[in-house]
């Protein structure tokens, strides 16, 4: 795919350090993400990948360093406000609202774009209902565009979905917030190759419909890392090891040692 080198930076991190007591989970990591770019993040377990996502989304406040969205500092902004500013995420172990319908899950994603409060709900019901119906219509359109199969299941409880559809629903729910940046935490975990391929196609379709959307994907599946991201960042022990196109990344011996392992070393040599 590739993006134009002149595309503006939408999200950047500077000197990000995260300490939990004596443990340094992340040390002076810097990154940039351009508009329309897909950045892959790899690294062994405990490398700090999820920590990075939690810092960006405001669940953790970094011990030092700064995250900026379009030049605006995000440190200390509560998680729910960061969503409103344009960063959405999915979770490694899917965290759907299992007892609500598929459609409700996506409607909840419209929360930051709707306004009705308790007073409107009770005394201005028409207005509140019209707003929610509009959100539901928007959500249906979104479901349809992400996956037809998911749309057909929109009235089922989300907890009944198959694994691949759960991931799709999480992506649809995150997209419902109209994000500028979408963070995917191991979207292919727990999926077989066929499901992963289908998921990659869906992600490509989502990006094609939203050329402005920037994506950050944490992944372990090397097939996905090899083909989807424009650029890959490697984390190890909370530090940035490398950052560049996959073709370059995979040749770095330290990367092969640290993460890709023997199997990938052979693969790279082949």
């Amino acid at each position, binding site marked *: 795919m590739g993006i134009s080198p002149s595309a503006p930076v939408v999200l950047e991190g500077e000197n990000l350090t995260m300490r939990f007591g004596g443990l340094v989970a992340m040390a002076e990591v810097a990154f940039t993400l351009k508009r329309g770019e897909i950045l892959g993040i790899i690294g062994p377990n405990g490398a700090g990948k999820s920590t990075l996502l939690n810092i960006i*989304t405001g*669940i953790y406040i970094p011990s030092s360093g700064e995250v900026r969205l379009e030049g605006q500092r995000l440190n200390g902004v*509560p*998680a*729910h*406000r960061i*969503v*409103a500013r344009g960063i*959405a*995420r999915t*979770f490694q172990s899917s*965290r*759907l*609202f*299992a*007892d*609500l*319908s598929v*459609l*409700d899950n996506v*409607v*909840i*994603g419209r*929360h*930051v774009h*709707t*306004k*009705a*409060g*308790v007073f*409107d*709900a*009770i005394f201005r*019901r028409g207005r*509140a*209902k019209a*707003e*929610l*119906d509009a*959100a*539901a*219509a928007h959500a249906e359109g979104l479901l349809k565009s992400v996956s037809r199969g998911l749309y057909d299941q929109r*009235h089922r*409880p989300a907890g009944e979905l198959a694994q691949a559809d759960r991931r799709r629903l999480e992506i649809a*729910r995150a997209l419902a*917030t109209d994000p500028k940046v979408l963070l995917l935490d191991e979207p292919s975990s727990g999926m077989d190759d066929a499901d992963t391929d289908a998921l990659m196609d869906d992600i490509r379709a989502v990006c094609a419909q939203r050329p402005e959307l920037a994506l950050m994907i944490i992944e372990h599946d090397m097939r996905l890392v090899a083909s989807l991201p424009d650029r890959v960042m490697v984390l190890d022990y909370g530090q940035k090891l490398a950052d560049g196109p996959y073709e370059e990344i995979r040749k770095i011996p330290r990367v092969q040692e640290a993460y890709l392992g023997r199997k990938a070393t052979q693969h790279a040599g082949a």
Partner: protein
Amino acid sequence: MAHASSSSTSGNPVSGMLTVIAVQAAGALYLRQFLLIDDWRFVLGLLVLFAAVLVFLERVPSVETRIEAAFARHSRLALLMGIALVLGFPFVLEGNTYALHLCVISMLYAVLALALNFQLGSANIPNFATGASYGIGAYASALLALNFGVSFWLALPAAAVVATVFGFLLGIPSMRTRDSYLALVTIAFGVVVHQLLNNLEFTGGPNGLVGIPVPELFGHAFSDPLVILGHTLPPQANFYYLSALLVFISIVFAERLHDSRVGLAWNALRADELAARCQGINVTWYKVLAFAVDAFLAGFAGTIYAFYVGFISPDNFTFLVSVTIMTMVIAGGMDNILGVIVGAFLLTMLPEKLRAFSDYRILFFGITVILFLMIRPQGLFPQRLRRYGD
């Protein structure tokens, strides 16, 4: 009732209307019999009948679907018929004041259970302080009436506001905790309120407040018998209609909130708090909001109770009251309005009807909770998925 609806065809509007009428009439008849029967063996018989109908509906879901569809299609008829039944109900109680009294108390508990349902049912916040909010409402209005001569009709909203302020106050420390710790904070709040009512001078200490004046409306005192169309109803009927109105308002509140963005946000934080935050929901605010709404309705119920009984003491608003309300929500069905009301009626009336076993009242509530959590955790009437645009 089951027979009438199963023989109807789903496409026929007349049979749909008949279904609605039959189901509602059967419900009212059942309630009447339940209230008027004294022998505990007959009470048990009625319970068995209730259980049998539930089991039948569970076994033959098509009947349930048909009844639901009929109510959805003829919602206006169902509403009008429901109002007519509620208005006419005191006339078929044969002037039985005790039955009317039970109705009033059941309806007040229904309001309390609906209030708690916003928290426990919608948002999964285990609030053990609904009884305290109820007490704050009762004391606030009683004190206003006794010390400042404020009329019932002014005390009613004022007490609800006071209870809401306390609800907010309780919500603030609760924001920082969750699950069992949150439950502990609310238990502590309930105990503190009870202790304060018991020890403060101006609340009358353990003796409580006596001589709360009887409400009046257009010169009609609520202690006088109610004469409607030449038919005389006992004085309790005044409060019967008042509490029925409050239940109606609570249902409207509950339905509108449940079907709104607020209800969705509560459901989201019930299912997964972290995920809710990451969808842009201000979890803290919605939790505090649930506390406030709960306290608001409980405050209303407290005022009516205080003016109905005319005498309140701290022991009317103990921790046990909160537990009872929680049992009603769990047994009736979390996040289901009808279920919560049925739960409140059943659990208010059963202990009264089974007086022979009154020593085992607490045991009865305990067993009810355990049985429901084991056998039917979703309650009598489980929550339903939402629909949009229709």
